[in-house]
């Protein structure tokens, strides 16, 4: 597997990974604001996609129809749609694309659900590796508290209830997140994650993130020279209903 730079793409992809509550979304948001201010051609992409695929995903989740295999496949479908329709053209066009979660989210989560790792990785092998992957590593308790304090109602799949780890959603969520964290740690070296200490406060983390991005990506190469505005957030097609706010990707 190669990175976008190794494959000769004009753009660069920066991904953030980590548990829910690790603070990665805050960090990537701040990174984006900085790059925008720096005049960089930047695009931010979330872990959601076309209404079409989403409609099936939502139905599957609501009716609890999903098995580990179909859960994995439907998210792969969703990712492929976003990858081929948005990420690839933007990367060809020389954007710095920021992804809140990338294939590693699927690697961790699907394997915890019992899918064979080689099978899952084979399915996502059409996707190139990020040029830079930040892993926001927080202690399990820190992440759990951030999530559980603010959001008392956990959804079925989000809490990993399909795994029958516990009949208590909170307990199930704890065990599930703990297993996903183990997967992240195991992938960290293999996929060359840049680990950020996410137990720290927001500001020092962001300083490190900005410094590393500037070191690894020559931002001058990606500055905007045309008067064109930055692209809008991913648009849903005509007639599609507005998306619900994205729930936890796990």
């Amino acid at each position: 597997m190669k990175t976008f730079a190794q494959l000769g793409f004009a753009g660069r992809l920066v991904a953030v990974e980590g548990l829910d509550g690790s603070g990665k979304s805050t960090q990537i948001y701040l990174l984006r604001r900085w790059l925008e201010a720096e005049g960089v051609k930047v695009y931010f992409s979330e872990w959601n996609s076309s209404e079409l695929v989403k409609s099936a995903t939502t139905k599957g989740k609501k009716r609890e129809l999903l098995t580990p295999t179909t859960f994995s496949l439907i998210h792969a479908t969703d990712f492929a749609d976003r990858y081929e329709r948005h990420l690839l053209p933007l990367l060809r066009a020389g954007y710095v694309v920021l992804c809140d979660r990338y294939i590693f989210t699927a690697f961790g989560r699907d394997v915890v659900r019992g899918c064979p790792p080689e099978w899952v990785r084979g399915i996502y092998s059409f996707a190139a590796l990020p040029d830079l992957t930040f892993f926001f590593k927080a202690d399990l308790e820190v992440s759990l508290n951030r999530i559980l304090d603010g959001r008392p109602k956990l959804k079925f799949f989000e809490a990993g209830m399909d795994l029958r780890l516990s009949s208590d959603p909170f307990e199930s969520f704890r065990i599930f997140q703990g297993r996903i964290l183990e997967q992240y740690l195991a992938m960290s070296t293999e996929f060359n994650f840049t680990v950020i200490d996410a137990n720290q406060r927001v500001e020092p983390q962001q300083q490190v993130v900005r410094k590393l991005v500037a070191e690894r990506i020559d931002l001058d190469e990606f500055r905007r020279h045309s008067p064109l505005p930055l692209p809008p957030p991913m648009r849903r097609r005509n007639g599609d209903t507005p998306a619900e706010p994205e729930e936890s990707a796990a």
Partner: protein
Amino acid sequence: MKKKVSNPIPAPSSRRCFYGFGIPGAKPDELVGKLIVVEGADGSGRSTQIAKLVEWLESIGHATVQVGLKRSTLVSEELERAQNGNVLSRTTFSLFYATDFADQLENIILPSLRAGFIVLADRYIYTLMARDLVRGMNEEWLKNLYSIAPVPDAVFYLEVTPEELVQRNLSKNAALDYWESGMDLGLSRDWFDSFLKYQGAMQAQFRRMQKSYGFTIVNCNRSAEEVNDELKKKIGAVLGEK
């Protein structure tokens, strides 16, 4: 669990196994029913043959269940809409179809095989793979994707020449289907030409896959009755009927 996905590909047989990884938790030995697959283009007589087979199998006391492409509860509707809008890229389509297949596999095929039913599949992973191969997708990627599938007890590919297929499709609908004509491939702007080229390419893929997957090619440029007699004879042998 770490079975190699690549060669050798198991041939259809009475000893149940998967093409590779299988489904987490599914035990091959429990799948005591029979899985019979009928493959072929639109107009090859698949539905006619399957209807006749169901009638025959039930008359001799077998419980049957049918599955097919784009019939899952989970994604069939969305897949249909995507096809009509022609808005999804190749990998997305491929994975969408795989999701549809996996949903039926886990909710119908495996439970029915556990219960000892005869499962008649109106097309299976071979059509899905052939379509993608014709469109230039990576074969190893497809094999990994469909390594979740159980190896059927028998696979019949109903083969009709593209020239005869075009006649049958026009006689039935007075028009050709966009996807069955492979219009997304840009083989020709002329639907008739494109249909012949696309179906020819699909047939070549099936012929090629036949060598590794070992399915039975059935000449269907014959009457439905003649074809059905051949199918019954071969399925009878699989079931151990005399």
